[in-house]
């Protein structure tokens, strides 16, 4: 049960009414009154979202998926396979044009229906997916194409096969490949950013996050289960995990937030997708022309600084940004 979807249901009747009125009349008092009421309700419902509500927003069934971003690119040609074992449909990668710019794209792909979700393993990537990603990162670096990633996964696949084929090594190798890449890297967190499985394609020079996306060290449910043995306390865990875009911006983990329309990105998916692509284009413009060495050094320093610790005098030695 998605709390946002539930809440939207209560608006459905009013909106239907509104549509009816609009058909008949474009400027009546009743119409204007209802419009104001709906607007107010909407503001009440979505104006200030809790962490848990944002988790539900990030998982909203109508939220734009990676496939929507890929479809909105000027061009996209998928490159398949890890060259060893399998092509993982949970992670799509390939050449793309973005606002005329040649880039390498990596995207975690949830499905838009059950069948597609089963095929794509609900966007949970297997070692083969990460190895494909690594291969394409290395190819991008060699051809001097910027890397753009779209993150939307509840986490790396935790199945038997993935453990048997060294999921840890696959993720660790992606991180190394992104560290080595001599080209600009822009990561976008568009939906769920689930732990190491998300970071594997999000170690970047510039990290952009959708306002209502979440990015967390653990799922709220998992966290609640560990802490209190009760996954139902997930809303509480979500609050504590500081997984919202605003929190992560404060921590220096997210560099830029793309605002969503009131009620969430899915209220106007195509426009939001374009807005996100604009942000990516802007970031790439700023990174354009920097040498591989400069990029790598800045990337090193960026992650070197993230964290918070004290020295022995009790004072914080490395401050938050």
């Amino acid at each position, binding site marked *: 049960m998605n709390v946002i979807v539930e809440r939207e249901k209560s608006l459905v009747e009013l909106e239907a009414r509104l549509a009816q009125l609009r058909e008949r009349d474009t400027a009546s008092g009743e119409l204007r009154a209802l419009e104001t009421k709906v607007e107010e309700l909407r503001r009440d419902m979505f104006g200030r979202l809790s962490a848990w509500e944002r988790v539900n927003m990030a998982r909203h069934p109508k939220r734009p998926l990676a496939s929507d971003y890929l479809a909105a690119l000027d061009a996209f040609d998928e490159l398949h396979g890890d060259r060893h074992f399998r092509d993982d449909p949970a992670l799509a990668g390939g050449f793309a044009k973005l606002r005329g710019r040649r880039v390498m794209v990596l995207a975690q792909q949830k499905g838009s229906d059950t069948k597609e979700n089963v095929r794509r393993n609900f966007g949970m990537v297997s070692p083969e997916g990460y190895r494909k990603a690594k291969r394409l990162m290395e190819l991008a670096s060699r051809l001097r194409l910027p890397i753009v990633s779209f993150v939307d996964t509840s986490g790396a696949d935790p199945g038997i096969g*993935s453990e048997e084929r060294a999921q840890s090594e696959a993720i660790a190798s992606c991180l190394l490949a992104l560290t080595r890449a001599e080209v600009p890297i822009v990561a976008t967190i568009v939906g769920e950013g689930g732990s190491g499985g998300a970071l594997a394609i999000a170690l970047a020079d510039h990290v952009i996050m959708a306002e209502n996306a979440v990015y967390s060290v653990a799922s709220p449910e998992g966290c609640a289960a560990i802490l209190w043995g009760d996954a139902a306390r997930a809303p509480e865990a979500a609050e504590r995990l500081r997984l919202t875009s605003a929190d992560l911006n404060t921590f220096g983990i997210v560099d830029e937030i793309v605002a969503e329309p009131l009620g969430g990105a899915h209220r106007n998916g195509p426009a939001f997708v374009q807005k996100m692509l604009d942000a990516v284009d802007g970031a790439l413009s700023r990174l354009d022309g920097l040498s591989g060495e400069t990029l790598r050094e800045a990337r090193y320093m960026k992650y070197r600084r993230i964290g918070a610790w004290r020295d022995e005098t009790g004072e914080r030695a490395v401050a938050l940004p």
Partner: protein
Amino acid sequence: MPPIPEWLRLRRDKSVQPEDASLWQKCPRCNEMLYRKDVAANQWVCTRCGYHFRMHAYDRINALVDGDFVEIGTEILPGDPLAWTDKRPYPAKLEADREKSKLTEAVVTGFATLDGFPVALGVMDFNFRGGTMGTVVGERIANLLEEARRRRLPCIIFTASGGARMEEGMLALMQMAKTTQAVERFMENGNPFITVLTDPTTGGVSASFAFQADIIIAEAKAAIGFAGRRVIEQTIRQKLPENFQTAEFLLEKGHIDMVVERHDLRATLVRMLDYAVDRRRLTPALKAVPEFALQ
């Protein structure tokens, strides 16, 4: 011999007895009641059946190094960036773990020699927050690799970790990126990076520096994987086979270079250094005086 720099503090043969240490310890595999001192003297290996108990970081260091261990990074201490509370506030948990484990954090880092080879050495400890990686672990590991690189030393890290530390949220996850970058930079200068995976090594540590090493050794019977056993069982809704995610299983599946019994670890590491390190780089003077002491 030049003086040891200010920021290096010397610890000599520091041996740790946890507060709750009783005289006897039961072996969970063979059920034998063991005299605790005997087990300690045997590197925490059951004297009857060879079961490997989890080992304290300082005990491990003592069992490995030639003499002195020069610890670094103790000035890096955990903060509470999320003002985290669940059953207890995070700072209280940290304080309790400090008491219990006699450690300042979940990893001990520093320099030592192994059979004359100067090395940078990091040892994680499951007794401190389940060996989870928060900022301090990431910071100390990155520091260690950077210092090893600067001094052209090989680096050995013993891992033991439940993953990223939840109480530091995404700041903890980002330590995967931080340590990865330090590993990558370390590797530029041609010295070996060796990890020894001990029980348990999972999650964010497993998916970063643990599996980025040139040589990956696993201690016998250690549980190693990305997802925890419980998570997988919940996902697939069935029991996993006994040997799943064991060191031996991983060896067969090609993930690691070798499985080594604890008693053979020191000798194995020395052999690895002997193969992988160019001794000609060490001048005669440096052979006597550990290079790290020269700054």
